[in-house]
């Protein structure tokens, strides 16, 4: 053996070849290490990210939407805890028990539930918006594979109150209408997130160190609306709506000093908790509600959601005489004692423009002219002003711009182009016809004239507070001072008080209060249909206005004069809210 041993050891080529083999393996392994370096250093981010995407499941934690709180601290919009019930097919152990329990608790048909439970999918939603108590009961069964997720749902305690003002939110917690849209960025908050890791079957890994980003709840919005005033107004609107079988009734209550809106009614309102259900009023003209196609239904919904106070324009009629009178006073083309004569009409070029009183008011001063709401007097004022001056004051009063109210969907004023205004147009404008403005524009402009001449921005939003009630932001609005002189303002207060105490607005008179106001009766286009809009604008106290109310009744049946039907509505509101405001 030793002989052979020595003989063998001399065979160096064996050694050499074994060494070559080793070298080959060595280089191949080095190459593979190089490949690993490439994969694990240079491709690490790419593959690592891909792997992470594969493992991670995101789950949103909804942020609670901020509340909407009125001036009295009453919550008008809040959140309700609701549950979403889902089933996870792969985790269900006792399908029959699950079906029984869900049928019993959710009030769904067995077939419906069975279809969900037996469907092979990663997660199947059975029912959403389930009350929290029901969700808790289902959770108490402790059934494997049944998932109860809590969620927030927007909830409006007063249901239909101020519906088109408050607005509502969609399924994604986003504002769709009204203040919910305008202040969405404050109310919404930031959703949180749970990032969890799952295995290949989609089961979450325990103790995997889930990353949790806490949600930031939305801020509360404090508005100037007063729930009591709003409710008074709604009742008054409803009464007028029913009594006059009107198409709709709008009421705006504003503080003319600072532009804070206390109420805004568009009767009939709709239920904010079920914003996609058409109201009976909307369906009254529809023969078969179930036959509506999606487009028709959407049209009706849009109509129902419409905030007529800010989105609809109308011919203001005689209430606009306030603006004509203010312009004339400001320009100095008229004084209270100026004499006028009304034969019941006034000729403008070749046209005979009639006064409301066809027999004529006879001789009258400017003061009695406004109390009588005499058209020829105001045509005269228009003529004295001239188109250029008249338009100068429109601009100065802010009438031609939007009011920039903090609600979406404001319509602009529809006014003649200055160069198209001839004597006839000038005459009709001067008593409030042949052009259109929104109710909120009228309210804002009149407020600005009677408050001493400061153009205000009408608004609901006052403050933004966090969930603990700490002030986050005080909302600021533009004001323009000196749109008319103090003197003009005081004169207008005096004149409008006269209108109520002795003139056409006497139906709004309340014992013990000095009230200013102006009636209006305007006809809608086309004139041949004889459809009217009667309105009354009133404010109190007349010498230091703290509250201004505009009531608009659209298409009333029977008597349609503003002084007859709209003034009592304002009176009723004033009777209720003036003592209330005095107290507070």
């Amino acid at each position, binding site marked *: *053996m*030793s002989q*052979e*041993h*020595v003989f*063998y050891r001399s*065979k160096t*080529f*064996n*050694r050499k*070849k*074994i*060494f070559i*083999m*080793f070298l080959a*393996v*060595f280089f*191949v*392994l080095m190459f*593979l*290490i190089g*490949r*690993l*370096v490439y*994969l*694990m*250093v240079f*491709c*690490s*981010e*790419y*593959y*690592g990210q*891909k*792997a*992470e995407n*594969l*493992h991670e499941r995101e789950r949103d934690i909804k942020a609670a939407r901020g509340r909407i709180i009125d001036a009295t601290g009453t919550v008008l919009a809040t959140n309700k805890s609701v549950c979403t019930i889902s089933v996870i097919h792969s985790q269900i152990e006792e399908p029959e028990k699950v079906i029984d329990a869900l049928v019993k608790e959710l009030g769904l048909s067995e077939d419906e539930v069975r279809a969900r439970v037996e469907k092979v999918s990663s997660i199947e939603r059975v029912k959403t918006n389930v009350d929290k108590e029901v969700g808790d009961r289902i959770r108490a069964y402790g059934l494997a594979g049944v998932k109860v997720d809590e969620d927030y749902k927007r909830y409006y305690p007063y249901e239909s109150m101020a519906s088109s003002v408050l607005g509502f939110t969609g399924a994604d917690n986003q504002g769709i209408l009204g203040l919910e849209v305008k202040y969405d960025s404050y109310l919404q908050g930031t959703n949180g997130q749970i990032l969890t*890791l799952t*295995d*290949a*079957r989609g089961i979450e*890994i325990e103790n995997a160190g889930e990353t949790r980003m806490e949600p930031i709840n939305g801020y509360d919005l404090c508005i100037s609306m007063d729930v009591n005033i709003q409710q008074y107004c709604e009742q008054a609107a409803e009464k007028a709506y029913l009594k006059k079988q009107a198409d709709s009734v709008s009421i705006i209550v504003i503080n003319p000093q600072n532009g804070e809106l206390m109420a805004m009614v568009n009767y009939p309102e709709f239920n904010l908790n079920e914003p996609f259900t058409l109201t009976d009023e909307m369906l009254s003209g529809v023969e078969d509600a179930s036959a509506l196609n999606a487009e028709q239904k959407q049209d009706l919904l849009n109509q129902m959601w419409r905030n007529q106070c800010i989105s609809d324009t109308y011919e203001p009629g005689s209430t606009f005489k306030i603006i004509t009178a203010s312009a004339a006073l400001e320009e100095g083309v008229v004084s209270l004692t100026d004499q006028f004569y009304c034969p019941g009409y006034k000729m403008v070029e070749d046209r005979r423009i009639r006064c409301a009183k066809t027999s004529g008011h006879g001789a009258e001063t400017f003061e009695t002219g406004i109390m009588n709401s005499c058209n020829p007097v105001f045509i005269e004022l228009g003529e004295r002003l001239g188109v250029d001056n008249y338009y100068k004051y429109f601009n100065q009063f802010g009438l031609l711009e939007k009011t920039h109210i903090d609600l979406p969907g404001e319509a602009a004023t529809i006014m003649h182009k200055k160069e198209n205004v001839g004597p006839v147009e000038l005459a009709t404008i001067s008593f409030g016809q042949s052009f259109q403005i929104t109710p909120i524009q009228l309210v804002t402009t009149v407020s600005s004239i009677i408050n001493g001449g400061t153009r205000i921005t009408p608004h609901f939003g006052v403050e933004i507070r966090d969930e603990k009630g700490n002030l986050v932001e005080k909302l600021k609005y533009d004001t323009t001072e000196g749109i008319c002189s103090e003197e003009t303002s005081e004169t207008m207060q005096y004149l409008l008080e006269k209108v109520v105490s002795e003139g056409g607005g006497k139906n709004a008179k309340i014992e013990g209060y000095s009230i200013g106001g102006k009636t209006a009766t305007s006809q809608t286009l086309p004139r041949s249909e004889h459809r009217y809009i009667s309105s009354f604008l009133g404010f109190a106290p007349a010498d230091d206005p703290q509250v201004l109310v505009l009531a608009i009744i659209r298409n009333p049946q029977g008597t349609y004069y503003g002084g007859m039907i709209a003034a009592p509505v304002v009176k009723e509101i004033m009777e209720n809210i003036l003592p209330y405001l005095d107290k507070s």
Partner: protein
Amino acid sequence: MARGQEKEKKQKPIRYFDYSLLFLIIFLLCFGLIMLYSTSSYYGSTRFGDAAYYLKKQLFATSLGIVAMIIVSRIPYRFWMNLSGAAYLAALGLCTFVIFGGREVKGQARWIYIGPLSFQPSEFAKLAVIIFLALIIYKTSKQVGEFKTLVKVMLIVLPIVGVVAYNNLSTAIIILGIAVCMLFVASPKYSHFFVVGLVVLVVGVVFIALASYRAERIQIWLHPEEHEKGYQTLQGLYAIGSGGLFGKGLGESMQKLGFIPEAQNDMIFSVICEELGLFGAVCLILLYLLMIWRFMVIANNAADLYGALIVVGIMAHISIQVVLNIAVVTNTIPNTGISLPFISYGGTSILFLLSEMGLALSVSRGITFEVT
């Protein structure tokens, strides 16, 4: 030479035993078991409700293997000369039997069941081929330089390669590779092997071109993202890539949680990369290299050609499997099922690997040093 002989007669030769190799084996075994547990606990608990299911089975096989290794290492390796022919025939017989009588797992019959124990004859075949070829080449070592002898030897292994290839092509390739390596070392020539290499290349290309499913594998290899069957490869790459420099830490792999199918088998290296990072993976490769280097040392110093050839066979076996496994996992070559020695799950594999280690240790015992 004569003087050396005299000295050897005078002095008692120093007994040698390759402890380095033994430590490498023990280290790799322990490391393997830890990684196997880490990798397989998810499948163990989801399929069998026991996180240690695979670990227990592997531990059992490893214990058997260690006993076998100790026994084999104590038996002088020349003892196997007489048995190698029988072993070869037995392997041939078992591999043939498995085609007809084996139990099918995933469409391929590779296992023979004896009671609760399963046995994969192709693993035994590798060992049998090593000791049998070592004997054949040893006996014909004078003529091994002739091309005729080469062909003759190759013809001897061809039946078993064919039988194994019937349902386990990867193992057949390994057996063929082992045979070629042993002949390469034994032969003083190089030219023959260039010819053989060329032939293998041509045959390989034709082979791939003929079978469409193999061509598909090539496509998967080139663009694993675009093929549904590239799923395993891609998941392996995700695991490797997400490991980065130092890995996510032991037990922290995400990809083992059902994303990599059967991660404890052929794809275990990707989980090692994910958990231990580039650092861990390179350390493991260096450990294998160290082990292969030890085989080279033992083969170079073996007492006779027979012992040297056995160790060369083992060296070839380990090298081929390590290289091919890592190459597959890193998508360097098209996917084929080859396990990572000492680490991948597989009872038969670990049993015979350890027996081979016993043989290598036995050869190392035969080494004597001349003390001058």
